[in-house]
């Protein structure tokens, strides 16, 4: 077998010219080319990147050992929560939950139609699809904290800003996850509906929506889990909820009360995650 024949099977890159492909020959004379692995090259690049990052950030493992005692000291206080502080946690905790629920509901409601418009298998207009996707990508580049900060500046401090920030964040994430799921649905039933005389809306509604709905609800629940966690932090920038209390307690060096706040948050987050996971399992 001449090598001219086998070399046209793939495009020869610069790498292949330096590290020549291995030619495996069978006893009967048939040959096949095996390209040299790129793995050593990638490993080398990763090692260089990590070393560079360590140098840049001034990361020093001995610092962790030296400050270990201080960390333990702080942890000890956090794990001895001051339960007399608990009544002051309840109200902001409820605020946080309310913010997350309302923000998630609003964000998800807007996400459904937008995700449908951003799915290339449903919306055949490539221009509209790319416009929506660009907008969604834009929204997703903004961290929730930044959105909350901007909202706090626009709508004044408080839970309303937090709710808007969560809604915007939810909208960006759920739309993205949803249009990716919509693009994997089976379009066969849609074709069947068109073949039996349904118009586009009827076909979409009867054949696609039953497939989309469970996935949509599952994404909404997952986003709600994320939002509970995220919303606790939003108070930091004045968007209401538990974050304000956390910030305040750290400021007062009141670590025992901070422990109360964090443990209450932990219980709520764990419960909601457990419940949401159970529901999502039912949906799939």
């Amino acid at each position, binding site marked *: 077998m001449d090598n001219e024949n086998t070399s046209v099977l793939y495009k020869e890159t610069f790498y292949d010219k330096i590290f020549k492909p291995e030619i495996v020959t069978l006893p009967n004379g048939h040959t096949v080319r095996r390209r040299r692995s790129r793995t050593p090259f990638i490993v080398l690049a990763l090692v260089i990147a990590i070393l560079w990052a360590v140098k840049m950030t001034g990361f020093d493992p001995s610092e962790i050992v030296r400050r270990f005692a201080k960390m333990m000291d702080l942890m000890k206080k956090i794990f001895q929560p001051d339960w007399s502080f608990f009544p002051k946690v309840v109200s902001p905790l409820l605020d946080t939950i309310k913010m997350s629920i309302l923000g998630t509901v609003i964000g998800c409601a807007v996400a459904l139609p937008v995700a449908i418009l951003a799915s290339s298998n449903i919306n055949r207009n490539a221009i509209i699809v790319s416009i929506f996707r660009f907008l969604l990508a834009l929204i997703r580049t903004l961290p929730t904290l930044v959105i909350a900060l901007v909202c706090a500046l626009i709508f004044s401090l408080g839970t309303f800003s937090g709710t808007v920030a969560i809604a915007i964040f939810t909208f960006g994430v759920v739309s993205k996850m949803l249009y990716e799921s919509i693009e994997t649905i*089976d379009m*066969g*039933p849609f*074709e*069947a*509906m*068109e*073949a*039996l*005389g*349904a*118009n586009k*809306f*009827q076909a979409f*509604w*009867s*054949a696609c929506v*039953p*497939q989309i709905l*469970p996935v949509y609800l599952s994404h909404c629940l997952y986003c709600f889990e994320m939002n509970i966690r995220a919303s606790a932090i939003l108070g930091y920038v004045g968007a209401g909820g538990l974050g304000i209390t956390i910030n305040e307690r750290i400021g007062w060096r009141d670590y025992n009360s901070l422990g109360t706040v964090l443990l209450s948050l932990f219980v709520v987050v764990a419960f909601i995650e457990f419940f949401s996971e159970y529901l999502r399992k039912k949906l799939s």
Partner: protein
Amino acid sequence: MIEFKNVYKTYPNGFTALKNINLQIEQGEFVAIIGLSGAGKSTILRCINRMHDITKGELTVDGTDVNTLRGRELRRYRRKVGMIFQSFNLVSRSTAIKNVLTADVPDMNFLRVLFGIFTKEQKMRALESLDKVGILDKAYTRCDQLSGGQQQRVALARTLNQNPKIILADEPVASLDPITAKQVMEDFVRINRDYKISILLNIHHVDLALKYCDRVIGIRAGEIVFDGPASTITQEQIDEVYNGTKAPTMGDGE
């Protein structure tokens, strides 16, 4: 009656799938279309319900010129033409009866479609359709829990539920095992006989075509090379349809 007169079909990519097709199929006939993959079997079926447009010639069904139908007229015409697919095309997360009920959707008003409200009569009729193909007991089972043969029967029930005059079946048994394939073919025979519905089906398995269908149409590279009663086709004619290669069969014992 379905009538093709000098029909040509060229796809946008320039591939000519049908060349000068002339064909007459009377109401109530049971026709198998055989040929290699890419010979144009699917294209013939999909031209009849206008899932594809023809490029040249005339295609009439009961006197209606199919290629001039637009919008609402086309959808009303499609109500009378059922279609069965190789991959069943059911909403697999929904129950069998829900899938059968979708056949009524084109006749319903917007709000009823939106909220999925079906009348008692519609539900009874859907159950009767399932009963006609012998899977009434699976009516409230989700389709992803059903076997391939059962799913194809649900699809058949959905088609019967639209009360068609013609059923087009595109490789209806290609993804079924040999035993189930025979059962589904027998369903087709029964439906053809009992309800006088014309059935056109594409099939790879020549033995099944010869055993169950009345008439066989052989297509090679977009042209009809055989058209006649299943009982008269000879081995040479089958070989001609398949370019001289061995014709595919189910190959299992009776």
